[in-house]
């Protein structure tokens, strides 16, 4: 019986945050794919409060939330480290992880993403503006100094927290027929995306782009048809 189990869903960038942490540390785990429209009794038992993925189960004990799980993983399996050892640098990392968590809600495949799909209108404009502001802050404040990754030379939990920007944003833009991220406007971010996706573990563990595009396109069509 596997000591570590991970409940997740292939579309979720939050799920991937945990996959990356486990794989970067070489921790073997059993993956349980959940159908989010038909959640398993086991998932509901392990996360009765939120009923969401990802959930890590270690030796039968459930840990929930995609920012809490990587910290737990870091504390149980410290090497290779995914957070700085200096308390101040750790605080900076946690600040950016919180920022990512707060701002990326629009890129999760939750109901709020439908705001991106509106053919026109205020809601879509607001959503686009919100994302642009987030990208500007990352560019102007998060990546100053020409750093390779958010924490310096090494990949860390902060980069993983922003994973949705590196991969999911592009697919969402295509499905919605929008262009939000323009490389020439965000040179540091563009570099970061390339650096992030070139890390072998990340490269090998990204959700299937075509599959996701097809899913989002279908959802968009359903949404527009129902109006």
């Amino acid at each position, binding site marked *: 019986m596997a000591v570590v189990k991970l409940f997740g869903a292939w579309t979720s960038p939050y799920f991937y945050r945990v996959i990356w942490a486990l794989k970067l540390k070489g921790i073997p785990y059993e993956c349980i794919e959940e159908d989010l429209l038909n959640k398993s009794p086991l998932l509901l038992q392990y996360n009765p*409060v939120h009923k969401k993925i990802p959930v890590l189960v270690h030796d039968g004990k459930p840990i929930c939330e995609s920012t809490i799980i990587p910290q737990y993983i870091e504390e149980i399996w410290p090497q290779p480290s995914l957070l700085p050892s200096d*308390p*101040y640098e750790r605080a900076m990392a946690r*600040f950016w992880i919180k920022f990512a968590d707060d701002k990326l809600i629009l890129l999760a495949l939750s109901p709020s993403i439908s705001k991106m799909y509106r053919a026109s209108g205020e809601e879509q404009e607001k959503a686009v503006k919100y994302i642009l502001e987030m990208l500007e802050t990352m560019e102007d404040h998060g990546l100053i100094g020409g750093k390779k990754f958010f924490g310096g030379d090494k990949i860390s939990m902060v980069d993983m927290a922003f994973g949705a920007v590196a991969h999911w944003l592009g697919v969402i833009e295509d499905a919605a027929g929008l262009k939000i991220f323009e490389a020439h406007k965000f040179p540091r971010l563009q570099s970061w995306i390339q650096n992030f996706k070139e890390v072998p573990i990340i490269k090998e563990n990204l959700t299937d782009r075509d599959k996701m595009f097809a899913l989002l396109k279908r959802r968009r069509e359903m949404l527009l048809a129902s109006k």
Partner: protein
Amino acid sequence: MGEENKVILHGVWASPFSKRVELALKLKGIPFEYVEEDLQNKSPQLLRCNPVHKKIPVLVHNGKPIAESLVILEYIDETWKNSPRLLPKDPYKRAKVRFWTSFVQQQLFDTMFTVTKTEGEAQRKAVKEVSEKLQVLEEGIKELFPNGNPCIDSQNIGLLDIVILSLLGPHKVQEEVLGIKIIDPEKTPLIFAWLTAINQLTVVKEATPPHDKLVALLKFLRENSLKSSA
């Protein structure tokens, strides 16, 4: 206090987020300079220290700024390792504390603000939601207080206690101003006992503004909100 280990807190007396940091510093006996900010006229230091959000609280330690109250609390705990430890040593217990802290922060805070700032149907809905969330919390904290008796003292108080205090510590003030029962000792006996225990600590009492001042503040905030939404 020498230049070594100089701590400055930029805060606002009325802010629960600011209060959390103030309390953590006092509980650990860390000397600090407090700067009361005027949110209508923020100091240049504050804007420099938190350029991303321009908000309080901001802790400045030896010239280096940290923003976001929960990030600050973890920093304090990792830098000043004396008692009380704000997070337990065991990683699974730490995950539990972080989980419930996140729950209070994300599920309860905004809904409580809605309760204090609205009336009529909107308020009724929010009150119902708070009540449901409190029931979930009541169930959840049973494993944190297995003998059913929250014994909080200045040595064992932690992150979750500070966070729940910052939101619901003044529940009697909230109940007086709103005329609504928020923490019912019959519906949520554990939460009621927990808040009572935390509120009795000397450090907490000393850091809490007088009842009348808090009542006046809440009335003022509520009236302002109702006026601007009318």
